[in-house]
């Protein structure tokens, strides 16, 4: 088979160029994810404020953010935000991407936290009250340690989903692998090899991440001694 449209020379020529953006792509993934994890807490707690008005505002803001494409949000933050009088600020593309992707995904992460918290038995709250545990310690030592571990697989999935949305940042000029591949393509008039490289990089990173998350999940389960429960169940059958 003669693949005359595919050139290994171009491939190996483009590879180091594209790889230069890997640090930015991975850095942006982690930064946005961290932002989303923290901001997600904010949503979760704001929704718990016992005030109908705040609850209404927060719920609809989350709905709005979730129902608009992340690409539009990125463009808005990068192009439109700076021209708004008084509050308008002009940010570095990387910061815009962290803000845009971080806020978008924080709404999903906030939902995950909420489901985790709601799954903690009501009796756990009551026992904490009966032991006179402070509100802060209640969250920190009793509720969250039970609410978060079961959500780790879901949180992990969102990490990988977010990683795959990071190339969107190339549209506002973040020099990750996607932008470098596109500019290599434009300069050399060959898009096939550099974009294939981008695809391979994503595959090579996503798959091990999924495996890693699975491992992490098992480790957290062990802390909860679920294995012991499984063993007990096995012994009973």
């Amino acid at each position: 088979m003669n693949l005359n449209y595919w050139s290994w020379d171009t491939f190996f020529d483009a590879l180091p160029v594209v790889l230069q953006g890997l640090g930015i792509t991975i850095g942006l993934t982690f930064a946005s994810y961290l932002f989303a994890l923290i901001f997600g807490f904010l949503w979760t707690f704001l929704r718990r404020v016992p005030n109908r008005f705040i609850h209404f505002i927060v719920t609809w803001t989350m709905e709005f953010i979730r129902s608009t494409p992340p690409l539009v949000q990125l463009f808005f933050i990068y192009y439109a935000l700076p021209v708004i009088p008084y509050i308008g600020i002009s940010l570095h593309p990387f910061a815009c991407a962290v803000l845009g992707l971080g806020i978008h995904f924080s709404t999903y992460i906030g939902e995950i936290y909420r489901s985790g918290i709601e799954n903690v038995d009501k009796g756990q709250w009551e026992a904490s009250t009966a032991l006179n545990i402070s509100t802060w310690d209640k969250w920190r030592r009793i509720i969250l340690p039970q609410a978060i571990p079961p959500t780790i697989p879901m949180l992990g999935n969102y990490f990988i989903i977010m990683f795959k949305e990071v190339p969107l940042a190339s549209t506002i000029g973040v020099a990750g692998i996607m932008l470098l591949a596109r500019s290599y393509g434009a300069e050399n008039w060959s898009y096939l090899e550099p974009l294939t490289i981008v695809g391979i990089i994503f595959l090579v990173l996503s798959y091990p991440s999924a495996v890693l998350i699975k491992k992490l999940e098992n480790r957290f389960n062990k802390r909860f001694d679920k294995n012991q429960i499984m063993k007990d169940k096995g012994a009973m059958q």
Partner: protein
Amino acid sequence: MAEPIVTYKDVHKSFGDVEVLKGIDLDIYPAEKVAVIGPSGSGKTTIIRLLMTLEQPTAGDIIVDGRNLWKMEKNGKWIHANENHLRSIRGDIGMVFQHFNLFPHMTILENCMTAPVHVKNEEKSDVKKRSIEMLERVGLGDKLDNYPSQLSGGQKQRVAMARALVMRPKIMLFDEVTSALDPELVGEVLNVIRDIAENDDMAMILVTHEMDFALDIADKVLFLDEGVIAEQGTASEVIEHSENPRVQSFLQRFRG
């Protein structure tokens, strides 16, 4: 006679349109053992949940050791108690639940230690020593590092009692603590309660279906019916010699 440690003054509680407590007046004295009996839905559990601050009364006052539990004075006016006020009183009260409510992510020793260490800021080594003593007392000294999921229901409930005792409450509340247990495990839990009742000088309020046990350890028995205290007195007065037809039919149903 000494001052009561807990006083209910015309306490009412409604859930939506349903009034569960319709005016409860009650004095409980230090070291007194009180059993609360009555048909399900009569408001037994609600009485102690109000005292544990798990529910708010709709009307009336609950006085704990001379202080109003659900109200506080501010600038000469009585306002609804805030969390700080509740916390300052709640420390005197401990509770054991029907479904144990142990913390599943902690070993049973950690279950006992977490509140004294973080709530009362006590020295960790003291708390550890006291927790181990308490767990030995309830017969679980060999399970310190086990997780709740590895214990039987009776063992879980004994841990829950040790956990409450380590806090050294002045008043202990027991909310149908044997109702979720398999019949063969009830005895071991009742033995621990009996041990506490005989050797500790705290006041105890037991909501229970164990009539014979209540008769045995209680100084005072309350018969609750449709949100009011229909009958109260010593165990033998209420359980054996009551002339109230509601009490009689309830006991008859119970004893078959």
